[in-house]
């Protein structure tokens, strides 16, 4: 049952119904069950106020930015190149945006500059990884350190406060009783899921992550796919940084520290792998983030010691990868 791994992505065309069933069968199915259990625990332990609009707003606001960063970073995972620098890039993007807006520049212009910096960082990662053939984990670890150092070199004392009202309203507000930014995040997730599952380019990304040699033989440009995936990942992180400044009104030099591990833990719970490309679905990523956010929220509104949160997330992560392996995924030796 375990040793003969069935290929997760078959070239055979499948009916829509079959594919839907197939996806429920896979990681998305078990993560849906996990989410259902989480919600049930919340309902039983906390009571109906767990689903109160104010509580949904709290969860939505705190999960939305990590979700947007995660969905865009998942392209790199899917293409088989893990990008550890996203947490530092979120922080660095936020610092640049906050400091430049504080000087009085037009926020739109500054946002463009920040995204531009994201592109440069993504291209740098891509250049070393793809053209030199270096280990993605090592390169992006270096970038993580470098960007954190730059943030600390730029913000040496209390950072300026830049409350931008429209951005604050989008990142903290609600639309029709639902957190606006979460709606945007879910929208991005659905678009990404459609793109991955339904378009030829999306299938190319999966193919490159799954087996890059076979992909190359099939005439797909592995280089191009991976470069674009890494740029998308860094740009997503810089957008996350901008949104954090909107939400928090400022940016310290430690913003985003450790965010990459939180995001990848949630993505792995949702069926991605940081050590193997070609697997995972943005919908699974969304559900994974919701599970972690749900548990966080349950502990929070019960005013439970937050130290237990990381322990629970760690156990769920281990359980998720174990279940994935029983299904024939990611086996180590």
């Amino acid at each position, binding site marked *: 049952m*375990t040793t003969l*791994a069935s290929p997760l992505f078959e070239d055979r065309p499948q009916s829509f119904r079959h594919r839907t069933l197939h996806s429920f069968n896979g990681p998305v199915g078990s993560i849906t069950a996990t989410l259902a259990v989480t919600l049930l625990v919340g309902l039983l332990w906390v009571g109906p106020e767990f689903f109160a609009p104010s509580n949904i707003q709290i969860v939505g606001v705190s999960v939305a930015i990590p979700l947007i960063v995660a969905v865009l970073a998942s392209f790199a995972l899917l293409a*088989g*190149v893990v990008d550890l620098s996203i947490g530092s890039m979120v922080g660095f993007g936020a610092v640049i945006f906050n400091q430049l807006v504080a000087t009085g520049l037009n926020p739109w212009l500054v946002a463009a500059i920040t995204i531009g910096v994201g592109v440069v960082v993504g291209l*740098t990662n891509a250049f*070393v*990884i*793809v053209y*030199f*053939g*270096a*280990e*993605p*984990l*090592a*390169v992006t*670890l*270096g*970038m*993580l*350190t*470098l*960007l*954190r*150092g*730059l943030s*600390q*070199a730029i913000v*040496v004392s209390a950072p300026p406060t830049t409350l931008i009202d429209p951005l604050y309203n989008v990142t903290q507000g609600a639309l029709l009783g639902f957190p606006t930014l979460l709606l945007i995040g879910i929208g991005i997730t659905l678009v990404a899921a459609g793109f991955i599952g339904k378009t030829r380019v999306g299938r190319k990304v999966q193919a490159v992550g799954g*087996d*890059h*040699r076979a992909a190359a033989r099939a005439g797909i440009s592995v280089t191009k796919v*991976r470069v674009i995936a890494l740029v998308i990942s860094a740009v997503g992180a810089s957008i996350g940084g901008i949104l954090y400044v909107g939400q928090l009104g400022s940016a310290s030099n430690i913003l985003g520290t450790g965010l990459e*591990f939180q995001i*990848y*833990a949630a993505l*792995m719970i949702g069926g991605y*792998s*940081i*050590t*193997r*490309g070609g697997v995972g679905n943005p919908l699974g990523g969304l559900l994974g983030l919701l599970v972690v956010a749900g548990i966080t929220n349950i502990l929070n509104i019960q005013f439970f*010691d937050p*130290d*237990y*949160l*990381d*322990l629970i*997330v*760690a*156990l769920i*992560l*281990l359980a998720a*990868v*174990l279940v994935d*392996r029983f299904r024939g995924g*990611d*086996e*180590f*030796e």
Partner: protein
Amino acid sequence: MTTSHLTPTDPVATKPDKPHISITDGRTFTSFRDAISITGVWVLLLAATLIARPDFLSNQTLLAVTFTMSISGVLAVAQALIVISGGLLDLSLPVSLTLSAWATVSALNAGLPTVLAILAGLGAGACWGLLNGAIVVFGKLNPIIVTLATGFGGLAIMLILFKSAQIPSTSALRAYGLGRFLGLPNIFWPMVITIILFGLALTYTRWGRRLIAIGGNARAAKARGLNLRRIRLATFTGSGAVAGLAGVLFSAVNPSFTPASGTGFQLIVIGAVILAGISLSGGKGNLLVLLLSVGFLATIPTSIAFFGLPPAWSLVFQGALLIIAVGIDGARLKRTSR
């Protein structure tokens, strides 16, 4: 060629392509080249700092660098053992470090003799390593993911266990941590001994050759009759004990620490291992080159201080160097495999 290093199940991984006959010669040559290039960059750094500050080369700089090297050097050995044996990476080393430091200090505070306290520290590290190894081996899970989770969870458990720990100021271990031998900090010597000992063991003992063999090609090693599970478990436990030694040294020089005190070592240790040319794909690595790379990385903060720059810049330089180093290493691999 770029990512398959990290995919142990990938049937078309690069490992089988490697020429097995010339592995020893090739490795010695690569190590030599790595050593030369690190020394070269190191000399450049020293020269640049010397031009700015002619008094850079002094006994004080030597003390600062050797002190900085000590704990990260021992941790780097622990990490290197995992990487060379094909265990990819151990992301929970900061937990091993503070857990064993806490065990040592608790034993001392309970009035146990120093020897037992040190054994408690080593034992705590070994147990932590064994736990990681057991999850990896019996769950057949990827070590990076396992240690990511245990790193998270372990820190959480420690935060529940204790808030801060202090070594008794009158203890012999504390006095050792403050002393010097042959003009260098006491804690520098256990690091040097650890590197030399494990360096020799890797090259000259059957145990070391097995470790390298399963790191280079686990399947072939298994086919040759090696017990993969046992070696993996032993490697994780042994590496944990080495991290435990780092914890003991850490407790001797840090009069007060918290569960999170180890987190600062994570990046610098992984950076040192990668810079030393110890590829994450496993099966290769020279610990003497590791000593060089630890020394080089430890020199950066001191140089930064001599230039009068804030310490944040040493992060920038260390990060940039890591990127450049793995880039060069990748390009070289790409060329030789063609």
